[in-house]
């Protein structure tokens, strides 16, 4: 951006940073980069059942100039790699990349000559989403986590300086932005539980315990 990034660190920059980041995260538009099977799940996430439209993301822009978030959904072959890079380069700043599925994150089950072993060989990735394919709910969780990360991004050189100062002061949140599952983040009680568990270093155990207690996978004949 322009003048906003050059503001001196201080209350003005903090406020501007918050507003700008909030605007950026609330209106991410995805660029279509559905390559293979994961694209089907991405499309399913846009359907009314799972509804990415709740966050304004049901519109996938075909033009990279109008998109902020490139969801690389599917395996990238050696032949497709330069195309992927070109589309990424054509996206305007600010831009983020979510690699959806194991094939985009690491080559997946295709450990061979034809498939690029992870799109992070080609573009910088902000969020990795494993799964083969990941369920639409998992994709939505990854998008929400990425939005949280965007919300806490420092704005410009001044912002980075302020972040550095905050880190030195120890004024960092317990849970890194983007590290809490969305189902915990949206519920205040569970959010406290998670933060407490992170302090103790047992957040995964908490997740498993809660899941076993709820027992949703045992109800409705397994259709949870």
């Amino acid at each position, binding site marked *: 951006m322009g003048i906003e990034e050059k503001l001196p660190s201080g209350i003005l920059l903090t406020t501007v940073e918050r507003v700008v980041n909030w605007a950026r995260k609330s209106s991410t538009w995805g660029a279509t980069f559905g390559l293979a099977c994961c694209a089907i799940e991405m499309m399913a996430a846009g359907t009314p059942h799972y509804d990415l439209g709740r966050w304004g993301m049901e519109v996938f822009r075909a033009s990279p100039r109008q998109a902020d978030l490139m969801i690389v959904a599917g395996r990238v072959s*050696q*032949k497709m790699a330069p195309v992927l890079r070109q589309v990424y380069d054509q996206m305007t700043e600010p831009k983020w990349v979510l690699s959806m599925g194991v094939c985009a994150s690491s*080559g997946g089950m295709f*450990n*061979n*000559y*034809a498939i690029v*072993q992870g799109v992070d060989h080609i573009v910088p990735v902000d969020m990795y989403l494993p799964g083969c394919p990941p369920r639409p709910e998992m994709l939505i969780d990854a998008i929400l986590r990425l939005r949280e990360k965007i919300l806490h991004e420092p704005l410009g050189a001044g912002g980075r300086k302020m972040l550095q100062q905050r880190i030195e002061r120890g004024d960092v949140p317990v849970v890194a932005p983007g590290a809490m599952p969305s189902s915990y983040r949206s519920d205040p009680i569970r959010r406290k539980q998670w933060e407490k568990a992170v302090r103790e270093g047992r957040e995964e155990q908490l997740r498993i315990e809660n899941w076993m207690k709820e027992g949703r996978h045992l109800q409705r004949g397994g259709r949870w």
Partner: protein
Amino acid sequence: MSDVEKNPSEDSGGGVPVSAPPVGATSGAPAEYPPASRAGRGMFGVQGTGDTSGFGGLVRRRPQITSTPRPFGGYFDEVYDALEEAFPGLDEAIENVVVDRGELTLHIRPERIVDVCRVMRDDDALRFELCSSVSGVDYLGSDPRRLHVAYHLTSMTYRRRVRLEVAVPAENPHVPSVTSVYPTADWQERETYDMFGVIFDGHPALTRILMPDDWEGFPQRKDYPLGGIPVEYKGAEVPPPDRRRSYQ
């Protein structure tokens, strides 16, 4: 054991008198008669390289292709007779006629493939209008002319299928292109070139179609490595499938 210098434990039996195995000790099960050739041994235990993936190891000794005697059965006889009638030079063009598992395969000499295809397409009794597929096969180890090209022809008027197979050595992998007869073979032949290295003479634009244009090597040949990188887990690194080894 009258030889006093020899220690009884140095005997192969450890000094225990060895007699013939008692009757009933063997059951005559197939596992007790190890297979004569490597092909029958399967993948258990370590043989050769100890490859555990199956990518490099499966060896199937393909028997020599022999012509099936007449009558072939089904519509194959009609097809062959019609072809003989329509194509006078069939004897020099055909190397083998094989009927296997309900499918007719005509092995054709590479030079004559275009003429045979034209006759198959145009003759009224044959009418194989549709070239369903052109693909390559690599018979490394079983055939000195290791690269084969298989043409699957379908007749929609008579509802028949036939396969033409052409064999070329890897040193001189030239086959005339059938795109003048079947235009759909255009991209199929490009794929066969890309994956096997079979060069089709007379093809309008023979370039790589699946791999990037500057790729070196022909991936679907049997001696092309799988590629792939070792995968790191916590506390272990697993190599790609064709490089995994068993150590027992």
